């Protein structure tokens, strides 16, 4: 697997799996405006998936399509970070997961708009507009619920404690990231982390939430070495029709 291909899978698998999770809320959110907003977020993420996995399939050059990559790989070939696999939990956990991912995603996409690969820069330029809106909305909601009632504050603090150990993986650099940086395809994750910490720190302060004093990070998603148990269950739903009726056109 080339580093470039693997990097594109990471981008596309993150948006695919998070889009899947967010879409599970359709019809079940606390208020209609959130049904609309979460469906819209999921829709953007699935649209971005089509672009990233579409490019990945081209780069791979084995005749696979974005749909083949989404629907016909098993869990160990997925390259998304563990955080996006986490179950939705309550609405607070969903929004906390969304904000932490959005804050990373925004910095990543901003960096990718000046990628040495024009196709990557093009996709990033389109996606960054959507993600600017996602992070504004998820950040405002984290603030509103963190600094809301005693109950909402407690739930949001619990959500932050739950999700925090999954932040580190997004910025943990490995051989793929090093090659992407040296070829100018993707930005330096250490630099992204600085911007992320400033952004997240400001939002959590407004939300009156305390960032856990721990740098511990679960890992294994972006390398594909060890996903959570949840990913397999996501795939059983997502891939079911394609697996049950191979070769059919939908």
């Amino acid at each position, binding site marked *: 697997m080339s580093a470039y291909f693997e990097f594109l899978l990471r981008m596309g698998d993150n948006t695919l799996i998070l889009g899947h999770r967010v*879409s599970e809320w359709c019809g079940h959110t606390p208020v209609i405006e959130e049904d609309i907003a979460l469906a819209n977020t999921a829709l953007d993420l699935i649209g971005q998936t089509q672009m990233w996995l579409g490019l990945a399939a081209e780069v791979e050059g084995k005749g696979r399509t974005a749909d083949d990559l989404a629907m016909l790989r098993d869990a160990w070939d997925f390259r998304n970070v563990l955080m996006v696999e986490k179950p939705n939990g309550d609405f607070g956990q969903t929004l906390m997961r969304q904000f932490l991912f959005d804050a990373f995603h925004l910095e990543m996409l901003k960096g990718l708009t000046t990628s040495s690969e024009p196709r990557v820069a093009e996709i990033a330029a389109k996606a960054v507009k959507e993600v600017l809106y996602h992070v504004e909305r998820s950040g405002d909601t984290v603030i509103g619920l963190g600094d809301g009632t005693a109950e909402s504050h407690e739930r949001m603090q619990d959500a932050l404690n739950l999700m925090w150990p999954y932040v580190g993986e997004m910025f943990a650099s490995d051989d793929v990231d090093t090659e992407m940086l040296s070829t100018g395809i993707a930005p330096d994750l250490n630099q992204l982390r600085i911007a992320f910490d400033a952004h997240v720190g400001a939002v959590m302060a407004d939300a009156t939430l305390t960032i856990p004093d721990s740098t511990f990070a679960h890992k294994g998603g972006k390398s594909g070495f060890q996903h959570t148990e949840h990913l397999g269950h996501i795939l059983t739903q997502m891939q079911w029709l394609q697996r049950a009726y191979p070769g*059919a056109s939908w």
Partner: protein
Amino acid sequence: MYAQMIKSEATQDDPERLAAFQARIDAGEKIEPKDWMPEGYRKTLIRQIGQHAHSEIVGQLPEGNWITRAPTLERKAILLAKVQDEAGHGLYLYCAAETLGVTRDELTEMLLDGRMKYSSIFNYPTLTWADMGAVGWLVDGAAIMNQVPLQRTSYGPYSRSMIRICKEESFHQRQGYDIMMKMAKGTDAQKRMAQDALNRMWFPSLMMFGPSDAESVHSEQSMSWKIKMNGNDELRQKFVDQTVPQAEYLGLTVPDPDLKWNDEKGGYDFTGPNWDEFFDVLRGNGPCNKERLAARNKAWNDGAWVRDGLMAHAEKKRAARMAAE
């Protein structure tokens, strides 16, 4: 047709005002929220628009059931967009109802405790991917039959909501038919799914128009107020006449052995739905009534802390702004 069996409320207003009101409607004027209106007109509209709004919201559930299992990324995106539109339709309609002096929360509570209804169709399950096609083709198709004329309804905010909604519904119907085309021209298993979906959805779709006009004792007042624009049987006939050739084009069989073109009336003769089943569904005994209402109640109850939290935060911000001024 997301509003069924809407009973017109009796009105005991001054006959002169009533006559002047009727004259405005007959002249094609739109009634706006601040205008005088008979109490029966207001109450009937609240019930009808509310039921329509509830149908959009509950209607997210049978389609939402397939978002995570959509067979391709493209189909997933289209279905997400469609379900999002439905939530948006619910929102416009609740806003239209609010102009009549009822809040969205009041309407929601009436849905959740069973005082208000939603369309019977959403109490049927979606069992295969072909059902996503059939819902768009048949259910949205039936809804459009009713909603296109409602663009000319007498109540301004309702009419304007319908204009926006109809634009999106026609896209929904086309995407449904597109799914059916793929299935009907696909593998044997896909064809079987498509036929099975039509078999299950056909009669429930015919029920969407409500019982025969001969049995609908409440229609007349709503018709003269232009809250209801057409008779139930008339719309049902139009739907059958439009849909049968579409089924034939797909190579599917409408599950009605007595379906026959009638040259004399220029339309099809067809078997009506089983109205006992319809009334059973309305009474709460449809295949999914319990699940649908339980899902909406759970969403509302589980979301209480979110709504309270966001309200409390907004209040804190308002208080801080006041203190700063």
